[in-house]
């Protein structure tokens, strides 16, 4: 190092944009454009049916095809997705979990078709099922079967695709679900420990080679707006992971103990109000994961400024990519050694996080580890509680969010003058076209080869052999995503994870005014109960495949705390189920939460089914990322109210809900 502290310029991190939508061909075009723009890796977003193992023609896929990512139903789709992109030269990150083994099988099959060497393939499968149970909600199978798939993928790639990152332990979604930095550190680490212990238990990896497995573990981390603490969190991660690798797994090679991580900065904190401010938040959050040379991200992807409004357009994503390029290439950041080595302040905060996170790691391990803490709902409940505390702090003004609870007045933003054009809309005909294409695919393939491949897959699922070879063979035979998942569902069953809401305790608000508001709401509800004879009962439903349950959970808890009887069904319920529940439970009100953009398909269907069941007198409200124009349409369909991320004051929403029940009762 030169005396100035400067050194030879570091290589920039991998810059990606999380992308994919509509169809494989449209996404391929997008990828090629992004690569031409200077992006250095691909990050594939799959649609929810692909993530949860359904073909586009499955009833549960309705409204979701091509919405939050690209639909990949079979080898032909995967081939189209990477048309003209040589896989042996690409670094591809796939956000895929429950069906990770399948999507990687398709990827390997395409590479084999391209005559690429498996050993040359680079990239990442997210493959972290624990956080799906806790936050993201795209799990399919019970925990034991899921862990088996996870370890199958890991033990396969360690020998067959050695440059692949078989798993990306995600603390990202934990923060999105409300985790504090301490919780984010602790729960990511116990997840990694759970996975490594499970790999060890397979006995497939010789003791002497276990360091290779530890060395292939990578992480996917979040960075929030409190960027100094976040910077310390990354340093704490480096220290803690080194400790785990050394002490628990006896890894002697420091390279294999390195904390390798990618980042997507925080989406939870992006606001619908004054959305242009989000680009500033995004840049500041990026600093937390790039400033420390000793704890720098290997790959960064940034959200778009308008995520809270709807699906971002290519230009919005490009703007975020430019922010990365300016930091990495224009500034002098990469010319220096670690900026914080020796800083007492950074050291002290880092150590504080290391200690508190380590204590929580021990707590979870004492409860039997990550899988057990998922099944008992312990971690989920902790996250729900933290998120409730966060929302309360924003609602009370304790936590300032510019444009939301402070400095809310301002000149109108020219960026959102025409709101409907400020987001991407997906062609509603995509679903139909995808189904037609799928039918064609099924008709063209060799039916007996498919049947044989499925039979073999079933046999392997029942045995303790690795699922990967049979899956790759099934990919070549033309098996579809839904067929692969359904075969395994038939063997292993499905799982509904704890919601964490029933046991969550929320500390009463300290400030007098807020407590008074809640008291008033409780009093009104009590009076309403006396008049109606029954306590008002609210059904909180999450239709569709989208598993982001924060909103639904927080509404459910708040509603209980003002005195509603709340029926919460968890994620992924069909319109039929919601209507059946409304009927059997005798509810007075239905609240639906949808974040995947499928509201225009799902909500009218539910309203229509309620009418058919003779329940059209039950008011329906909807919450989610819902563009203005759609709000109007939903109201015309008979929805009583629509709430979007800008409606952060839960007390107001509760007051509305009580009004609705009251009005409906008066009308009867």
């Amino acid at each position: 190092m030169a005396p100035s502290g400067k050194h030879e310029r570091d290589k920039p991190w991998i810059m990606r944009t999380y992308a994919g939508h509509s169809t494989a061909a449209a996404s391929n075009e997008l990828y090629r454009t992004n690569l031409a723009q200077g992006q250095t890796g691909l990050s594939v977003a799959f649609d929810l049916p692909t993530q949860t193992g359904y073909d586009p023609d499955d009833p549960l896929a309705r409204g979701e095809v091509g919405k939050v990512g690209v639909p990949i139903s079979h080898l032909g789709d995967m081939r189209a997705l990477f048309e003209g992109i040589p896989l042996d030269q690409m670094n591809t990150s796939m956000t895929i979990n429950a069906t990770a083994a399948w999507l990687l099988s398709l990827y390997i099959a395409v590479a084999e078709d391209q005559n690429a060497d498996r050993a040359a393939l680079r990239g990442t499968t997210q493959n972290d099922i624990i956080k799906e149970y806790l936050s993201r909600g795209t799990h399919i199978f019970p925990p034991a079967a899921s862990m088996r798939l996870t370890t199958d993928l890991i033990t396969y790639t360690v020998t067959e695709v050695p440059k692949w990152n078989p798993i990306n332990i995600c603390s990202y979604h934990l923060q999105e679900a409300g985790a504090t930095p301490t919780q984010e550190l602790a729960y990511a680490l116990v997840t990694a420990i759970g996975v490594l212990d499970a790999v060890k238990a397979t006995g497939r990896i010789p003791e002497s080679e276990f360091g290779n497995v530890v060395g292939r573990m990578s992480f996917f981390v979040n960075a929030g707006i409190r960027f100094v603490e976040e910077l310390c969190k990354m340093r704490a991660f480096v220290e803690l992971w080194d400790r785990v690798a050394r002490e628990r797994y006896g890894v002697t090679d420091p390279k294999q103990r390195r904390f390798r991580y990618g980042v997507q900065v925080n989406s939870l904190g992006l606001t619908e109000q004054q959305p242009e401010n989000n680009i500033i938040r995004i840049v500041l959050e990026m600093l937390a994961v790039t400033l420390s040379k000793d704890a720098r991200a290997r790959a960064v992807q940034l959200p778009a400024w308008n995520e809270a409004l709807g699906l971002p357009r290519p230009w919005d994503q490009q703007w975020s990519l430019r922010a990365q390029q300016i930091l990495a290439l224009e500034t002098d950041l990469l010319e220096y050694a670690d900026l914080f080595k020796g800083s007492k302040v950074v050291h002290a905060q880092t150590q504080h996080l290391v200690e508190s996170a380590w204590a929580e790691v021990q707590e979870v391990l004492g409860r039997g580890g990550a899988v057990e803490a998922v099944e008992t709902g312990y971690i989920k409940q902790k996250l729900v509680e933290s998120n409730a505390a966060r929302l309360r702090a924003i609602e009370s003004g304790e936590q300032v969010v510019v444009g939301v609870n402070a400095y809310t007045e301002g000149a109108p933003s020219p960026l959102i003058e025409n709101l409907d054009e400020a987001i991407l809309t997906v062609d509603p005909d995509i679903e139909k076209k995808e189904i037609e294409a799928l039918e064609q695919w099924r008709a063209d393939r060799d039916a007996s080869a498919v049947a044989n491949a499925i039979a073999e897959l079933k046999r392997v699922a029942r045995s303790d052999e690795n699922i990967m070879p049979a899956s790759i063979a099934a990919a070549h035979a033309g098996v579809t995503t839904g067929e692969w998942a359904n075969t395994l569902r038939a063997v292993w069953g499905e799982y509904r994870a704890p919601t964490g809401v029933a046991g969550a305790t929320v500390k009463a608000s300290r400030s007098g005014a807020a407590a008074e508001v809640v008291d008033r709401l409780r009093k009104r509800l009590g009076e309403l109960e006396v008049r109606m004879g029954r306590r008002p009962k609210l059904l909180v439903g999450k239709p569709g495949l989208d598993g982001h349950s924060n909103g639904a959970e927080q509404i459910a808890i708040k509603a209980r705390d003002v005195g509603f009887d709340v029926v919460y069904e968890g994620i992924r319920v069909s319109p039929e189920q919601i209507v059946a529940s409304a009927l059997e439970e005798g509810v007075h009100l239905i609240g639906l939460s949808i974040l995947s953009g499928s509201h225009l398909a799902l909500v009218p269907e539910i309203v229509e089914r309620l009418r058919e069941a003779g329940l059209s007198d039950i008011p329906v409200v909807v919450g989610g990322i819902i563009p203005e124009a759609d709000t109007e349409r939903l109201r015309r369909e008979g929805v009583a109210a629509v709430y979007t991320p800008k409606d952060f004051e839960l007390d107001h929403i509760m007051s509305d809900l009580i009004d609705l029940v009251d009005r409906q009762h008066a009308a009867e």
Partner: protein
Amino acid sequence: MPPSDPANDADRVRRADKAAVSRALNLVEDKRADAQDRVAALLASLKSAPKAIGGHRVGLTGPPGVGKSTLTSAVARAVRARGRTMGVVAVDPSSIVSGGSLLGDRARMSFDPSDAGLFVRSLATAGEVGGLAYAANSAVRVLAAAYDVVLIETTGVGQSEIDIVHVADTVVLVIQPGSGDVLQFLKAGIMEIPDVLVVNKADQEELARRAVADLRGALHTAQAVGVSGREDGDWETPILATSATEGTGIEELIDAVDAHRKHLEPTLKARRHRGEVQWMLDLFMRKHGEHGVSTLHGLTEIKARAERELDDGETPLSLCERLSREYVAKLCQTS
């Protein structure tokens, strides 16, 4: 849903028309004074339903977190697969502070929404400390008139299962490996011995084996100190291991529950009668307390009357109404 005439609905309830069942359940939850007569009339007209007489009421209880909802879901699927219909009452606690509740059982259940032979209703305890929900007794009777099997799922150890004994023909206690409290309660005789004992989460094999062994020991101790409290004679409480997530042991559980129902056959009527008497006493005590009891010549006398009069086609609700009127009349005389 607009309220409708219970007498008309009773017929539809017997035919398991979901809309009518739901309305009937709304009615039995209705706490307004003017609803009480209608509830009593509804229950009276459902009492003689063939399913109500020939069906099976099963209580499923155990400490929080043992996987009761998942188990209920697995049992419901298996019962349906055997061609029998099923109604479920899932009871969850209300918040003492707000009076509200989070009824989360449906979240752990997976079932076919188009299945006309399965009905699930969640109820909140509404401040009934340690007891069943206010409406649970009545709700079970509504569902019993409509479905072959009624399952009442409650949380708790040491209290609510005492209530559940009065409403269920068969009580299933679910624990998970390592539930020390349950063992202590059983040994100390604080808890009545359930009809079927289940160790759930048997996928934790070693722990589950130990738990089954511990339970055997606890049962033995309890019987040795004379806690039996059983009127069904020589029934030997089976101890089963299940894994609701993996679906193992479910068929065996249903077989055991069915075996108990069969064993009960000669005494079932008496058992249900005792349950009705107890429910009537609870209702009357809740309404009028010690003063009401002493005004009507004490608990023994009221109990004796309930035992006599409930036989005559009267429901606990209607008898309680009648006794209430007597009590009020006496109050007026003395004042």
